[in-house]
């Protein structure tokens, strides 16, 4: 039982813009190289243990959603390998591949775009069951009603269309759809960021209830640090396609090691602190993933930037038993 439940090993995902005709001609003539690839996810390694909740945090555009899609098999990785229960998923075919796709389910960010507007709720939730014949035909309805009840939706809604629901209800439908195929790993791509704050809490509680009942494992992608701290066992911080720090939630939030994590955690608004904090917001913007800065991608915005940061990209190294960070502040002692 030593196999890792789920692992991303050196996974990268590039997006290449399609060259225009003129660009292709120029390339063919040998004037320039091919257009640069956008490195949405760059060499990420992440191990997830069964039953654990891993929070994945980062700014908009840092590659969180792409990573989630690579994990669920919606996007193939450009490099690296995804392992599910110890087996590389690219080698899976037929039934095994379908099993991986179904066991690793995704809950999407936008509850308005993630449900087919032309399908009734009952059809939508039971679709995979019907198409893949996962349960006998006469039990599809029963299973569908079961998961709808589990996420707290009235069974009278089965014959309604998605547009007749509120955002929170739609997100519950999305969760029910994922649960219908009995997954053991849920990848949640900012599942509450499109919802009202009052609804967010309800949906997060639903996630936690479901987890307890079904013993699920979560990869919870979010940019809301409060939510992530509340629900995660471990937290990974992403910056420009790379994981810059990963550790247990309690430890990481108490004493962030990477300057970027420090800046993020300093920025959490607090309702209880009375004393004035010295708050220095991060300067500048996320650099373009088309041409990331050399060395450490964070160095242009880092207050601790040293000469080495501009030249050498710091590897993710272990700094304490359950914590790793990618920063020269923590790696210099060993690497030199």
């Amino acid at each position, binding site marked *: 039982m030593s196999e890792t439940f789920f692992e991303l090993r050196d996974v990268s995902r590039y997006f290449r813009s399609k060259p225009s005709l003129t660009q292709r001609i120029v390339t063919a003539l040998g004037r320039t190289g091919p257009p640069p690839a956008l490195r949405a996810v760059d060499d990420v390694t992440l191990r997830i243990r069964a039953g654990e909740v891993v929070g994945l945090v980062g700014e908009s555009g840092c590659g969180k959603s792409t990573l989630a*899609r690579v994990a669920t098999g*919606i996007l193939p990785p450009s490099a690296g390998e995804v392992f599910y229960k110890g087996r590389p998923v690219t080698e899976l075919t037929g039934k095994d591949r379908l099993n991986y*796709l179904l066991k690793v389910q*995704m809950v999407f960010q936008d509850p308005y775009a993630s449900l*087919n507007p032309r399908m009734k709720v009952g059809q939508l939730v039971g*679709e995979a069951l019907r198409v893949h014949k996962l349960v006998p035909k006469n039990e599809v309805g029963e299973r569908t009603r079961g998961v709808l009840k589990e996420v707290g939706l009235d069974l009278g809604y089965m014959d309604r269309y998605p547009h007749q629901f509120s955002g929170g209800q739609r997100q519950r439908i999305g969760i029910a759809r994922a649960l219908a195929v009995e997954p053991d790993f849920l990848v949640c791509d900012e599942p509450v960021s499109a919802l009202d704050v009052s609804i967010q809490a309800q949906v997060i509680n639903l996630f936690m209830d479901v987890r307890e009942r079904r013993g699920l494992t979560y990869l919870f992608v979010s940019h809301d640090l409060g939510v992530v701290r509340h629900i995660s066992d471990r937290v990974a911080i992403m910056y420009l396609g790379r994981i810059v720090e990963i550790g247990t939630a309690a430890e990481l939030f108490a004493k962030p090691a990477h300057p970027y994590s420090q800046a993020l955690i300093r920025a959490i608004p607090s309702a209880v602190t009375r004393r004035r904090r010295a708050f220095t917001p991060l300067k500048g913007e996320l650099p373009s993933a088309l041409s990331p800065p050399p060395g450490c991608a964070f160095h242009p915005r880092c207050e601790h930037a040293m000469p080495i940061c501009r030249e050498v990209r710091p590897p993710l190294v272990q700094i304490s038993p359950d914590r790793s960070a990618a920063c020269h502040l923590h790696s210099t002692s060993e690497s030199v």
Partner: protein
Amino acid sequence: MTADIETFAKTAEANTPLRMQVLRNIRNRPTASGAAIAIAILVLLALLAPVITPQNPYDLASLSVMDNRLAPGETGMTGITYWLGTDAQGRDMLSAILYGLRTSLLVGLTATAGALAIGSVAGLLAAHFGGAVDALLMRIVDFMLGFPSILVALILLSSIGRGVDKVVVAIMLVQWAQYARLMRAAALVERRKEYIEAALNFGLPTRHILLFHLLPNSIGSVLVVASISVASAITLEATLSFLGVGVPVTQPSLGLLIANGFEFLLSGQYWIAVFPGIALVLLVMSLNLLGDRLRRSFNVRGP
């Protein structure tokens, strides 16, 4: 308070099914509702033609050449009163027009349905598979749309001959390309939505995703454009028949009737050409008016 009422009204609007909204939109417009009624009447007349016409214009035995070119309202040798006159073969114009309407509608609707089917499939495949499939299909579409449709249809028909089925094929071939282009554009937008990713995540077969997810969500605008294109298919058929490459003489459509009466126009026997002409104008104009209203209701931009 007023804000509450406004939001309430908006929610009510959003919750009314689109179908009802469109129906209301048509009913509130006199031109659109008039056109809808006109189409209903014309279709009904065409369907009931064998029952209500005094004469079967295709049955040459029932025609009397002695009754040729009678003016509207005259009574012929057979005792029938020809309310719209007769043509050179002694054919009752009213009967001929109603039967012609049948042919015109049949050709227009089947050709549009066929073109819609071919175009939708082509557009869907191009959007979903992209790359070489997309490039190939869209270059064919560009090529097809580069020629004037009347020219392509003329060349086609003069090589394969006349006949209702052949005209349908010719019109299908010149019209599928516009649907393909529209369908591709709509499907490209839909394909990026998360519900398609969800379908991929469930490992659903490509055929299933295309048919049950992409198609129903992309076809709206294409259907609306098709409703306008029925009129242009009918016009195209009329033009081809007028030019003598369309339907056979034994099964005249409105266009062929106009062609038959054309030579008598200057000799004062206007009814042989003018009445089928009026019927054609009425049909095409009603289809256009209704189609245009549908297009506006669904907020679709034209091809």
